[in-house]
């Protein structure tokens, strides 16, 4: 497992974000994420989790503080939104190929890469469907494929499975791990995952950062379990103990927010 102190792929140093109107979204937070590490941000609503993702992606800029991303210049993060954010007028194939099309990728290689991405998320047979014809879980799979198709070094995931039922969510957690932490000789990608779910955070990540209002990181729990992780991990006493530990941290964080 990569330790947080190894060369950081991402770091936020004393980052503050105040929105126009004066709302404090992030209060001077610092954090380091190593290359290939899977980190979850867990916390109550409005604690600034999504703001961290937007800052890391470059969609938003901090009011003060510095952000560094050790990624090649042309690297675009694979961003997965809370809803699938697919173009309703376009087929799954055209949705997934969008990032490649915008970069002017030749049609032949584009088709190949889209097919591979669709197979990886289990949508090989639905390439020609339009989003309306898909279930919520399948739409989210298409959204994952759209991020995967560019082989991102960095995944930014903003509570992508929050609206799905538990069975679909478990299946997609497994799919996501297979994409970010591939077995064999695939290089792991760095991932920052925002969630409300303790179980999801523990199952997926190497580190869970617990946030509280307004915009602070108040706790950190390491999940020292090697990948690959399968469904069996969810039923181990170790998993239950980790979930209990993270739940307590989250409760403390929520109480802090309530007093703030």
């Amino acid at each position, binding site marked *: 497992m990569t330790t947080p102190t190894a060369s950081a792929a991402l770091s936020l140093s004393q980052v503050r974000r105040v929105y126009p109107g004066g709302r404090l979204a992030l209060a001077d937070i610092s954090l380091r994420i190593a290359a290939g590490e899977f980190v979850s941000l867990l916390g109550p609503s409005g604690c600034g989790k999504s703001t961290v993702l937007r800052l890391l*992606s*470059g*969609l938003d800029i901090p009011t003060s503080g510095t952000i560094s991303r050790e990624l090649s210049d042309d690297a*675009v*993060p694979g*961003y997965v*939104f*809370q*809803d699938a*954010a697919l*173009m*309703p*007028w*376009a087929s799954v194939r055209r949705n997934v190929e*969008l*990032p490649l*099309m*915008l*970069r002017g990728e030749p049609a032949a290689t584009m088709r190949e890469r889209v097919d591979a991405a669709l197979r990886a998320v289990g949508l090989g047979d639905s390439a020609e469907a*339009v*989003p*309306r014809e898909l279930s919520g879980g399948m739409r989210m799979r298409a959204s994952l494929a759209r991020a995967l198709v560019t082989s991102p070094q960095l995944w930014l995931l903003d509570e992508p499975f929050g609206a799905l039922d538990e069975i679909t969510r478990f299946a997609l957690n497994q799919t996501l791990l297979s994409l970010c932490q591939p077995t064999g000789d695939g290089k792991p990608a760095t991932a920052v995952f925002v969630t409300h779910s303790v179980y999801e955070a523990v199952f997926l990540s190497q580190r869970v950062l617990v946030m509280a209002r307004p915009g602070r990181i108040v706790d950190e729990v390491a999940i020292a379990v090697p990948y690959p992780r399968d469904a069996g991990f969810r039923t181990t006493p170790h998993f239950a103990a980790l979930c209990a530990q993270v739940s307590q941290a989250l409760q403390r964080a929520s109480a802090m927010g309530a007093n703030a």
Partner: protein
Amino acid sequence: MTRGDALARAGVPTLSVLLFLAAWEIAVRALRIPAWLLPAPSLIATTLADNFASLAASWWFTVRITLIALALAMGGGVLIAALFALSRNAERALAPFAVVLQVTPIVSIAPLIMILTDSPLATVIVCAWLVAFFPILANTLTGLRSVDTNLRDLFTLQRATRWQTLRHLLVPAALPSFMTGLRIAGGLALIGEVGGEFAAGAAGRDTGLASRILESAFRTEIPKMFAALTLVALTGVALYLLTGALSRLTLQRWHESERH
């Protein structure tokens, strides 16, 4: 959709119209209503047939002007909507004029336009354009403003050019609203054309159906007036069906408004 549904969809409205015409015919004959007060449908039909050549020329004039005005309204409405979508200040500066033109009854502006343009033809086109333009502007603007913010962010992240964003995101996203605007504008362009003709008082060779209605009224050729009126109404229905078909054709696979 079953065959019974299809039959009901086409058959029920046809039947209700036929029943209405039959009731009208019977009422006129039974109550001996004179033709100068209310001609029977059969008399209107024979008058239409007898005067077909001259009425067809007027019909073509009306249709041509309506379509020209509608095309100009589409172009102008979409361009100005795009300008408003790009710049709030442009909207703030120009919106009052658009609203004033929209809320002022067209028959009250028409004489002014007649004086300014000194051309009956130009007056009719401007009148039809004025009433058709606003619904296209308002609806297209709503469409452009309601683009999924996550999709916007995705295009930003992928460093899409302005042209790419316009072509692949804004145009398809605004299409359903534009179609709604077009369906309203089609009927309004015809109303504007008729209003413009009334106000411009065009006489002579180049005249449309509205001038024929006025002319017949002056000469108390009431069946002929009804024949011209029938053509206006049928043209309105045709425009409505045409714009509806266009909307279904472009949206039916993906948009909720065209699901049946």
